[in-house]
């Protein structure tokens, strides 16, 4: 497609975004092939506890003698999958609610936006804790909880875009032709409303990873899978004697989230028509 090439040329202009993308690809690669190259079960107690990084344990071992590197690599899978799936679900739901509210306006808009506001007013992390606590903590419930607290911002944004577009002449022309609402929403307006949504949902992946880490840190995540937040939680008790145990996964979260944010910024610059030069 011709659009993709132009898009890449614009994206490339932002150096920080390109660096972010490189880091992000590295994290994704580590998540995919890392556990294959370093085939150690992160729950196996394979050495003395609380070891400093060494030739045998590249990043040391935790309080139970588990390999931190293995945990980091397996945790990358969990963090990325939870982050991406939660964002996709939240984006899809937010798009649906926002599009319907923005396009139809009136009473439909009122009802949908009051629901959205309800979710927006509750601190999202607290809400996520409540949802996970009610249901059994598992990958599915954690992902659902994060999606449930993330969609309102997408809905708000999409609603604004749809309100801005719905009375444009090209939409009126479609109505004058007798086009069905569903087609106007999906085929005509949605592609025009999508660019800012892509930016927001890419940034949402970072927030979702942080939320998941927070939940695991508090022990509110799936006990059967390892994740970065869980690793920090494990290291918390020995923070004063073995700081690296928390610092390593902590820095990994920081770097990943930062990379996603840089990519999001780059997407924003590349997709924002106001910044495009003629």
């Amino acid at each position, binding site marked *: 497609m011709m659009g993709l090439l132009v898009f890449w040329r614009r994206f490339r202009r932002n150096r920080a975004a390109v660096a972010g993308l490189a880091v992000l690809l590295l994290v994704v690669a580590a998540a995919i092939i890392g556990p294959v190259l370093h085939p150690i079960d992160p729950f196996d107690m394979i050495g003395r506890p609380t070891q400093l990084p060494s030739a045998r344990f590249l990043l040391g071992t935790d309080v139970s003698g588990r390999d931190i590197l293995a945990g980091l690599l397996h945790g990358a899978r969990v963090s990325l999958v939870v982050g991406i799936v939660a964002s996709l679900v939240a984006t899809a739901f937010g798009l649906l609610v926002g599009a319907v509210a923005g396009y139809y306006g009136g009473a439909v808009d009122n009802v949908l936006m009051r629901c959205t506001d309800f979710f927006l007013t509750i601190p999202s992390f607290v809400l996520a804790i409540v949802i996970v606590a009610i249901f059994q903590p598992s990958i599915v419930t954690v992902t659902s909880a994060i999606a449930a607290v993330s969609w309102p911002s997408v809905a708000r944004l999409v609603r604004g875009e749809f309100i801005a577009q719905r009375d444009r002449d*090209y939409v*009126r*022309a479609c*109505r*004058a*032709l*007798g086009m069905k609402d569903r087609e106007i929403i999906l085929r*005509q307006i949605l592609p*025009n409303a999508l660019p800012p949504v892509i930016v927001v949902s890419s940034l949402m992946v970072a927030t979702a990873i942080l939320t998941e880490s927070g939940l695991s840190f508090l022990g509110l995540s799936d006990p059967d899978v390892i994740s970065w937040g869980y690793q920090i939680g494990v290291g918390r008790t020995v923070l004063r004697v073995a700081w690296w145990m928390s610092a390593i996964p902590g820095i990994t979260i920081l770097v990943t989230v930062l990379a996603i944010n840089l990519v999001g910024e780059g997407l924003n610059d590349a997709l924002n028509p106001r910044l495009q030069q003629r």
Partner: protein
Amino acid sequence: MTAPAAATPVLEAQDLAKRFPVAGGIGGRGRVVHALNGVSLSVAAGETLAVVGESGCGKSTLANCLTGLMAPSAGSLLLQGEDAALMLRREPMRFRRRVQIVFQDPYASLNPRRTIGDTVGDALRIHGLAARRERRGRVGQLLAEVGLAEEHLDRYPHELSGGQRQRVAIARALAVEPVVVVCDEPVSALDVSIQAQVINLLRDIQRRRGVAYLFISHNLALVRHIARRIAVMYLGEVVEIGTAEALGRRMLHPYSRALFAAAPAIGRPSHDPPHLDPGRPPPLSGDVPSPIDPPPGCRFHTRCPHARPRCSAEAPALRLVDDRLVRCHFAEEIAGHG
């Protein structure tokens, strides 16, 4: 379907009114914009009726009501003798196929993310007018009819000039073979040298297809050249309506006269500023009043140079004076003056 007799209007508005509630601040409740008030007009098959007025006169609301994009608050709309409101409810696609619209700004009226072929093809697809395999060829024919080439099929709107985009918008309207097309300021966003091209195109299409136009414009000089009949609107009302010939000879309503006098024109005897030209009425003072609280009596009396006490007390009716309808108590007297 048989062609209607020449005298039968294809589209007829009877006493059309449109009021909007004003969403607004504290104390703004219950306020209403009177965008259209008692508008009656009709277009016959193959004819052009021009509606002229300035911003706030209600011409865009009129376009929305006539094309079924907005439901009027009162009055009725007849399409080839059938009640349009009923048709829009029961068989909307029948209405949509017969009444189409071309907008002012060709930059806004085409979806920037769809190709020209998609945009025109949508019209055919929605109405089932061409099977998928024939669609591309049919769109090509339509583009040819508006003076574009096959190569434009796969282009995006931003790759075309303003004039070319307006041609695409016209092709989209024509795709469903409508009997009447509402043209809402179709050339005012275009360069002067392109405007005549588009007007000529619209005229050629009318000759070929016998389509009727309701041509909305702010430009009296232009519509005198292209319309058979002209309606002048002010603050939601028709103030004067008659043949282009009659109105071209002279205008009777003080607003039509002021509108005509205000438009600059090349070759007026002295090329002094209008206010120094003795033969020309002075420019109107003030702005168009708000349609939220239109003035009582004649809506034009606040700016009318001929206003008298009766004008603010009693709303004039649209009545026959000589060869046209005029909404003014003193039309005969004003006509006598000049």
